[in-house]
């Protein structure tokens, strides 16, 4: 082989690669040029990889088969039962679903509007309350007291009562230049009640940020407010994103409670459709539409979280 003449021009590609591999192996990769990796996995490593692959395949197979099996058993149990045709007719009637779909969809639009507007208002109010509760020092006592009392009150009151109180009570006061629209007062009631819950979620997040983070920020000369804004809250909000998503989804469904004030949301629309023939399919349609809203929202949050590299509580190891 002519490859012994090292240092001369590379005679051909194969020999060049071989001598490169040899020198890399002996000298320990001087300077480590990019792409100059000449390592090939050993037989042992290849066997390990094959074993791990086979284990992965096996687990995937087992889980797929068990899932299918359980699903099949449940479907069989339900559909083979004596009353199934009746249940199917009452809850899963295709014609009834198609017939009621436009009305339910129109109702859903109200849920969506309430959810979007109230969602923003709740986030702002909840965060403000949470920050108020975490303020230290005697000077902030009135703010802490207010926030604590607010949370205690609105977390304790049933949402339905708040809606009735504001939705019927405020218009009954006959205040000049104040709207009596059910959507508005219903939305206010939901915002008041939900912000109490959300404030506690935010507070948990704020308190989970390690004191050393505040210390580091204050040591750099940032004020208390700047520390909160640039260091504490960004970490706090990331940690509580999953429970906040819970609240958002639950808000989407609870927004229908304002139907007691006489407006028509998806569930009320379904109820109206049902009233004519006691076929409950419209409720299933409404449920399906709610799920269609929730699932993309959950996936979107997961996606954003992953892209930003959020892993919950940080720390070494």
């Amino acid at each position: 082989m002519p490859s012994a003449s090292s240092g001369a021009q590379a005679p051909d590609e194969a020999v060049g690669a071989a001598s490169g591999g040899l020198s890399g192996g002996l000298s320990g990769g001087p300077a480590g040029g990019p792409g100059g990796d000449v390592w090939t996995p050993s037989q042992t490593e290849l066997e390990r990889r094959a074993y791990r692959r086979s284990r992965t395949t096996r687990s995937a197979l087992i889980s797929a088969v068990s899932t299918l099996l359980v699903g099949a058993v449940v479907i069989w149990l339900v559909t083979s039962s004596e009353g199934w045709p009746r249940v199917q007719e009452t809850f899963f009637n295709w014609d009834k679903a198609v017939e009621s779909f436009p009305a339910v969809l129109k109702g859903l639009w109200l849920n969506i509007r309430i959810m979007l507007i109230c969602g923003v208002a709740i986030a702002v109010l909840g965060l403000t309350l949470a920050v108020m509760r975490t303020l230290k020092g005697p000077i902030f006592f009135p703010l802490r007291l207010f926030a604590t009392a607010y949370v205690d009150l609105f977390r304790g009151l049933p949402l339905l009562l708040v809606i009735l109180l504001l939705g019927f009570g405020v218009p009954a006061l006959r205040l000049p230049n104040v709207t009596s629209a059910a959507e508005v007062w219903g939305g206010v009631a939901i915002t008041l009640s939900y912000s109490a819950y959300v404030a506690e979620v935010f507070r948990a997040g704020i308190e989970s940020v390690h004191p050393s983070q505040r210390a580091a920020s204050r040591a750099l000369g940032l004020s208390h407010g700047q520390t909160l804004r640039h260091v504490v809250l960004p970490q706090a909000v990331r940690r509580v994103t999953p429970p906040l998503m819970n609240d958002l989804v639950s808000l989407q469904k609870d927004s229908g409670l304002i139907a007691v004030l006489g407006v028509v949301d998806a569930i009320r629309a379904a109820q109206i459709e049902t009233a004519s023939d006691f076929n409950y399919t419209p409720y299933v349609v409404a449920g399906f539409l709610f799920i269609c809203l929730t699932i993309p929202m959950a996936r979107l949050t997961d996606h954003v979280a992953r892209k930003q590299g959020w892993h919950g509580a940080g720390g070494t190891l």
Partner: protein
Amino acid sequence: MTLLSVRGLRKTFGDNVVLDDVHLDVTAGECVVLIGASGSGKSTLLRCVNLLEQVDDGVIELGGVEITDPRVDADEVRSRMGIVFQAYNLFPHLSVLDNVTLAPRRVHKVPRAEAERSAMTMLDRVGLADKAKARPDDLSGGQQQRVAIARAMVNSPQLLLLDEVTSALDPELVGEVLDLLRDLRADGMTMMLSTHEMGFARHVADTVCFLDGGRILEQGPPDEVLGAPREPRTRQFLSRLVS
């Protein structure tokens, strides 16, 4: 008798080759000290031995049994080793005593009374028996690190791994932790540790390994590696330490 044998170990994180063809033997009762710059692969080597990292190639054997084999029960292997981290990694929600008894009670199924008895013996040995009911946050760094060592030692491991256990401590606290390690060494504990304390390496190590760029560039008795290093890179590293 060779307790731990590392052959052709390779570990990468993405394109970054952290360990490259590492060979190392640890005899029972021996104290092996890993030295080298930050990023040379010391911690990763210890973590690979503890199976906290999945190796990309090579073989690690403990007591003649290959532990890098995916068929091996990693929890069982780890229960025969102790590891102590630079940042202590004590569980802040548990008392000192509960930190030490957690593994004996949950992994080794030792009854509570017995686990607490042996934990107290171990805490007494590290000089912290009076702190048994305290929370880790109430202790100084040196005390926390001694608790971490007691936690690792209470399972009577065959091998104790220590990853820069004094790096976060002031000189006085470093002394108390290193004294403890000397005691363990005198009792015949097999140890593998990474450190920047060259004085400790010189006096306590049986073998010193100098790691650079993911390889063990030089290994031998401390007098040779620290006193008369063969490799220019080792000399350079040591000279910078002194200055």
